[in-house]
């Protein structure tokens, strides 16, 4: 399929809808030649699958971090008309509202380096990590309903943060209209989610103490409160077992819906339902509950991260300047309105491993960022560089206000586990002066930095295409992993 890609400019590649039967719209890939050379043909094939679903809005998009996944490739954006199109549990994936938040500090490398070991230990002890890790928060059934209704706002209302935190979250830290009970949100999902609030989880989720290494855009960095040499904290996690169960439940129910609505699927993972059908709207309401759980999860952990810094540096978090820069989601389906060929159209935008990148002046972004655009947080692979980008007008015109989300895998997890030993990865990171704490060392192997694409190449592509612009890059000093 890759041979059918037509290069439009240095960072844009087009796949016409004639590339295969049943494609309703064309597909676009953002990336340099180097990115396209390493992209799997199967990932391009998967992109064309999405274009066969009912009601897509041109184009279906792959970002430079795209790689072969299940259903939709990771690093893809699929927008569907709000009337004629579909909502897909399969396109959104399991880790609903997996996302990243960045907390700034007033501390410099010189302040933190001597206490780094102690700090990482403190954070590791305060933020529960690992699979099925039981949180420190005990929730009653009605409190759990409040969590999935109010998201990060629940945490703020329960003294785990301040209202300013909400203003710096995508969607203000919660989506309205979340379902809370069966039949939309199953008892299974509630059972699985209840003990997991305030847990980091395992796999690719992590918490990093980072140093701002480079500033690319001084004025925008200033608006975001970032400067060279400053210490920041990046938290990468999602809706945990709650979101995984919501996804599982709807993969099963949408498999029935596709038969009912007679929807042809090229891959059964792309199960979906008409956007305005009861099945579609039930999923959307349940997905919002998982979205809210994840926002709350990150907020609760932010509270503990601040407490960890307070314990180590002996000052309260406000004095340490630990304000939230932003919280972005990179696995979600959202109802949005975008201009297409001069007309405003309502649509459901599926971002699977892709980040919203709204430009300046958009009412959906915080007031203090209106003049520059929203922060876009790009987590590199564990132990490598991360970036802060800013959303652009070009993204609004071209990609439904979307950009990449991370480095993107270049090697399968199984291959990484076979090739690397977790202990060696830890030693290599420590040899570079980084402090690593994890539940075990084996789990580090699958996230070996070499198993990922080069995050710099990915970011240079989205910057080159102007669908987001580089503001700052960070390197990790300390890593906490599940």
């Amino acid at each position, binding site marked *: 399929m890759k041979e059918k890609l037509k290069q439009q400019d240095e960072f844009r590649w087009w796949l016409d809808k004639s590339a295969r039967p049943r494609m309703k719209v064309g597909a676009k890939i953002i990336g340099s030649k180097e990115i396209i050379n390493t992209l799997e043909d199967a990932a391009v094939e998967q992109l064309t699958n999405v274009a066969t679903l009912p009601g897509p809005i041109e184009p279906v998009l792959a970002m430079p971090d795209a790689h072969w*996944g*299940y259903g939709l490739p990771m690093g893809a954006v699929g927008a569907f008309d709000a009337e004629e199109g579909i909502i897909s549990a399969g396109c959104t994936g*399991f880790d609903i509202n997996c996302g990243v938040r960045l907390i700034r500090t007033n501390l410099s490398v010189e302040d933190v380096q001597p206490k780094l070991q102690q700090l990482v230990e403190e954070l590791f002890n305060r933020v529960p990590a690992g699979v099925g890790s039981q949180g420190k928060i005990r929730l009653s059934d009605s409190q759990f309903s409040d969590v999935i209704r109010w998201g990060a706002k629940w945490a703020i209302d329960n003294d785990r943060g301040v209202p300013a935190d909400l203003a710096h979250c995508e969607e203000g830290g919660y989506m309205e209209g979340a379902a809370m009970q069966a039949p939309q949100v199953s008892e299974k999902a509630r059972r699985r989610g209840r003990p997991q609030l305030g847990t980091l989880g395992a*796999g690719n989720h992590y918490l990093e103490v980072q140093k701002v290494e480079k500033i690319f855009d001084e004025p925008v960095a200033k608006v975001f409160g970032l400067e060279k040499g400053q210490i920041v904290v990046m938290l990468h996690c999602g809706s945990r077992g709650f979101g995984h169960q919501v996804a599982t439940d709807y*993969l*099963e129910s949408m*498999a029935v819906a596709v038969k009912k609505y007679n929807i042809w699927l090229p*891959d*059964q993972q792309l199960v979906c339902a008409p956007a305005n059908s009861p099945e579609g709207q039930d999923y959307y309401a349940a997905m919002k509950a998982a979205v809210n759980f994840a926002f709350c999860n990150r907020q609760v952990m932010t509270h503990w991260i601040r407490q960890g810094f307070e314990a180590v540096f002996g000052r309260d978090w406000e004095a340490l300047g630990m304000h939230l820069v932003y919280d972005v989601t990179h696995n979600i389906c959202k109802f949005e309105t975008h201009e297409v060929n001069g007309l405003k159209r309502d649509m459901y935008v599926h971002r699977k491993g892709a980040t919203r990148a709204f430009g300046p002046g958009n009412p959906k972004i915080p007031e203090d960022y209106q003049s520059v655009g929203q922060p876009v947080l790009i987590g590199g692979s564990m132990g490598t560089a991360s970036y802060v980008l800013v959303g652009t007008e070009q993204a609004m015109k071209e990609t439904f206000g979307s950009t990449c989300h991370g480095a993107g895998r270049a090697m399968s997890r199984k291959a990484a586990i076979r090739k690397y030993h977790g202990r060696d990865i830890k030693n290599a990171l420590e040899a570079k002066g980084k402090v690593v704490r994890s539940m075990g060392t084996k789990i580090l192997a699958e996230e070996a930095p070499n198993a990922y694409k080069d995050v710099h190449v990915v970011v240079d592509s989205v910057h080159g295409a102007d669908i987001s612009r580089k503001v700052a890059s960070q390197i990790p000093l300390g890593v906490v992993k599940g």
Partner: protein
Amino acid sequence: MEYEYSDEITSDQLFHAYGTTLPEVFRNAGKALFGVMSDLEEVKLDHEIEVKAEGIDEQHLLYDWLSNLLLEFEVEGVFFADFSINLIEERPGKGFHLVSIAKGSQKIPELRTHVKGVTLHRFSLERINNGYKATVVVDV
């Protein structure tokens, strides 16, 4: 062969499980699922949990059962390494029903990865010459 893994999908894990009977292919798929996360030989079978499943057909029954195993692993904190499939029956008009005993330990072995969910991508349960073959891709 009970089960085998394939690397062909970059971000996720594919496996095939085999069995001469339906209960056997289910059991082996369960073992393959947990084998993605850790070495099953290290797990003592000192804890048992009853796990049920429902499905409109045998394939959906397998999907529901594997998903329920992940749920019980997280909620009950038991890492499973073997399974007894006690009942698979078709109830007229109600689809298939399964009752199993999942065996494992509350002492969770060190994990090399975490399975988030069972995908429907290439998911199948098919009859082959001498029994059944299941194909499963899990999100890790």
